[in-house]
């Protein structure tokens, strides 16, 4: 094992000490842990960003993530992303691609990676997707809501989501009328967005659905409005509270339930720390979140500085989602703008941004890994680093900002295979490799396709570095964050 902090280290393999798990980490700081922080709290750091975070120290690096800098990136995609119900597929596809490209470009260029990370978190929590009457324009409206509240207050955001146009269509809120209540949103609000199953009854679902009646989405889909005559103004009894509740009152009741802080604490831990957190750790985290009155920045401040976040158990314990993998790879090699091909490649990895598979979102973990998606992942990475403008075989388009192989190994002797291998492994997996794997990369750099020795030189260095990068990105460690 690599050098390890001897004190203040949360050791989850033994008995769980939840109190020390959330205490500030005071162990050694390294580029390896800086890269870990930037993978979890953003979409991976560029080599320069990892270096800066490593020099700054843990606390300064987390301060920087939590203290947003001015953001001059476009706040919306270019052009009109609305369309009518009978719009041709090409128009729908074009609008979809522009919306997702805009978001991916934000992930690539943002000065505030934690905000983009949390925007994605909320997208996979308060799920909606492009379908039927839900246009990319509406998903962008929702995306901006998530970004504006990325580090804000979870309770406040829940109130806003309940009247978000895309959400009203996705979970049939716009069809929820006093005469014909539709329970879809009320049920998922409790099951997936706040408390989890087992903390409410079917009667609570029916009563709260009545409270949410009256919201409609006008034809333009740009906003929502409340129509009093569609609202059921009668008395409702919900989780033991009785009154002439509206939807906002129901959300207030939900926010007072201990189950809500528990459910959200588990979700934050699964996304930021590891995906099977102990109940004691969930309890401690839920306590912090409730004490902070659902302030997300305060919770992340605790988690991102915690012993458990930097523990062995957390390190590379999460499977990279396609968006993590793709945006992370692009950032590593210096690409700043996405292309439709990138979005297509993510489809092949089974993630269609702004179109999750169902209201439960992407389950993550082992669900990302099968032969088809692995093939898509490794082939995308290979194409990415192999790309040459003159190459007729590649399907990649020109990638703005992509630094070439010589930039990836800047400062390293081009004839020293061990040094080149070390740089490539450092860039891609922070040297999280076995000796055999390292030897394989060296072997690749010093042999040809049939095993004859070759020497690295100005003739072959470009090809060999590209190949070594592609192999390093095929390492199992590269699929984990």
């Amino acid at each position: 094992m690599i050098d390890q902090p001897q004190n203040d280290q949360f050791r989850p393999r033994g008995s769980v000490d939840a109190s020390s798990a959330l205490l500030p980490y005071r162990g050694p700081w390294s580029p390896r842990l800086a890269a870990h922080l930037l993978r979890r709290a953003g979409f991976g750091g560029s080599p320069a960003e990892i270096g800066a975070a490593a020099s700054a120290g843990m606390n300064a690096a987390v301060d920087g993530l939590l203290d947003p800098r001015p953001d001059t990136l476009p706040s919306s995609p270019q052009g009109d992303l609305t369309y009518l119900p009978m719009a041709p597929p090409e128009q729908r596809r074009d609008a979809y691609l522009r919306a997702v490209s805009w978001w991916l470009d934000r992930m690539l260029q943002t000065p505030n990676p934690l905000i983009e990370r949390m925007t994605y978190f909320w997208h996979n929590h308060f799920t909606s997707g492009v379908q039927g009457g839900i246009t990319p324009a509406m998903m962008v409206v929702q995306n901006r809501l998530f970004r504006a509240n990325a580090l804000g207050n979870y309770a406040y955001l829940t109130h806003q989501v309940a009247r978000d146009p895309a959400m009203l269509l996705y979970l049939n809120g716009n069809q929820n009328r006093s005469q014909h209540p539709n329970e879809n949103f009320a049920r998922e609000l409790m099951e997936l967005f706040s408390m989890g199953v087992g903390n409410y009854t079917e009667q609570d679902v029916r009563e709260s659905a009545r409270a949410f009646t009256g919201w409609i989405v006008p034809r333009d889909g740009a906003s929502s409005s409340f129509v009093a005559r569609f609202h059921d103004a009668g008395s409702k009894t919900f989780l033991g509270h009785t009154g002439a509740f509206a939807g906002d009152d129901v959300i207030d009741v939900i926010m007072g339930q201990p189950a809500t802080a528990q459910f959200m604490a588990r979700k934050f831990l699964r996304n930021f720390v590891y995906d099977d957190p102990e109940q004691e750790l969930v309890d401690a985290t839920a306590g912090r979140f409730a004490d902070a009155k659902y302030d997300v920045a305060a919770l992340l401040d605790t988690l991102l500085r915690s012993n458990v976040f930097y523990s062995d158990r957390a390190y590379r314990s999460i499977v990279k989602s396609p968006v993590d993998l793709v945006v992370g790879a692009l950032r590593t090699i210096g690409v700043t703008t996405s292309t439709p091909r990138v979005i297509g490649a993510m489809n092949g990895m089974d993630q269609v941004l702004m179109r999750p598979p169902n209201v439960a979102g992407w389950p993550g973990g082992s669900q990302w890994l099968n032969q088809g998606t692995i093939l898509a992942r490794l082939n995308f990475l290979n194409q990415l680093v192999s790309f040459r403008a003159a190459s007729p075989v590649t399907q990649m388009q020109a990638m703005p900002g992509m630094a070439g192989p010589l930039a990836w190994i800047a400062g390293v002797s081009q004839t020293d295979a061990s040094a080149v291998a070390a740089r490539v492994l450092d860039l891609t997996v922070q040297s999280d490799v076995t000796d055999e794997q390292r030897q394989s990369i060296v072997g690749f750099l010093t042999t040809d396709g049939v095993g004859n020795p070759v020497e690295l030189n100005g003739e072959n260095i470009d090809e060999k570095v590209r190949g070594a990068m592609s192999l390093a990105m095929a390492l199992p460690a590269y699929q984990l964050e």
Partner: protein
Amino acid sequence: MSSRRQFIVQGIGAFGGALAVDSIFARAARAASQVTKAGAVANRCLVVVNLQGGNDGLNTIVPHGDPAYYNVRPTINVAQSDVLAIDSSIGMNPKLASLKALYDRQRVAVLQGVHYPNYVLSHFRGTEIWQTAAPESYDTTGWAGRYLDKAGLPADNLFKGVAIGPLLPKMLVADKTDVPAIGDLRGFRFNGRADEQAQADRILMGDGDRYPFDSPYLQLVQEVERDARAASSKLPHLVAGYKPAVAYPKTPFAQGLNLVSAIINSDLGTKVFYVSIGSFDTHAAQRPRQDALLEQFGDGLKAFYDDLAAHNADDRVLTMTFSEFGRRVEENANRGTDHGTAAPMFVVGGGVKGGVYGDHPSLTDLDYGNLKWHTDFRSVYATVLEGWLDVPASMVLGDSFTSLNFI
């Protein structure tokens, strides 16, 4: 997390040897299968066809004897004179002539009025429900994946299930089985030049104990990467001996069935295949679009079974269709139909007892404009699991469902 598959795949270092062994094995298996009675359980397989997008059942199996049909479908109906009549009340869309020919040879079961309780009208959720066989929960595995995990199949077979297409459908997602998804043979490969390929396998052979970190997913990533490398490098050689006996149509669906036939006839021990055709999401201008797709479906299936028959394999291949939903009974203002509920399923080939099962749902006794279903699709799955694949259906479906008698 689940630990998926525990076995060692031969590396590329032994590729030449592995290839020779595989070829000999495949030939031996083929010879063995020829002396086994066709249709014996061990040799049977299932092909599941997804009519993706929501196929309109009313214009597939047309209730031409019911005047109500012509009332609710004034512009997009199939004229009575065009219907390929099964009897005086129902018949097939004329573009299903190939399927009708199979039907007339008792090779097709038409199951009417199939769906599930508390229907949803979403493509995504609807598809997931049919593929997980779990209308009331968000399951992480598919029904066929659970079958592959639990049926006691040889653990070291890389091809227990095969999905045709670039993405693994939910139906074949399993806890312990990695099912390859193959768009086409040429695309099912890892990119990379020869020198990259030569090292790639060594790269994946890292000893888990020697990593400078531990991760609950490390083993899984390695296994899936190795499986994918092994399957993609071996498959083209394993099926190289197959020659189609018919000219398959040049449609993606028929080409997919051609690959299925190649794998079946190479005796790789594959038990479940997935193929899809679509999109049947005909909100506007339905007739030309759906007719063209139904023709591709029927013609592709006929070529497939003709080819299988020529290879003496048609009796051991059962094909079952599904679609996430049928469509609204009444046509819309755009000469199309919106999302609906019950629709017919087809079960073809194998040991099927040809004929029509279940009544056509009423066109006047409706559920908010949608057909009322009478047969739960899990009963159909249960019949296939028990009657064809010879496993207890409850092992896969959780609950028990009434078996039907079409096998």
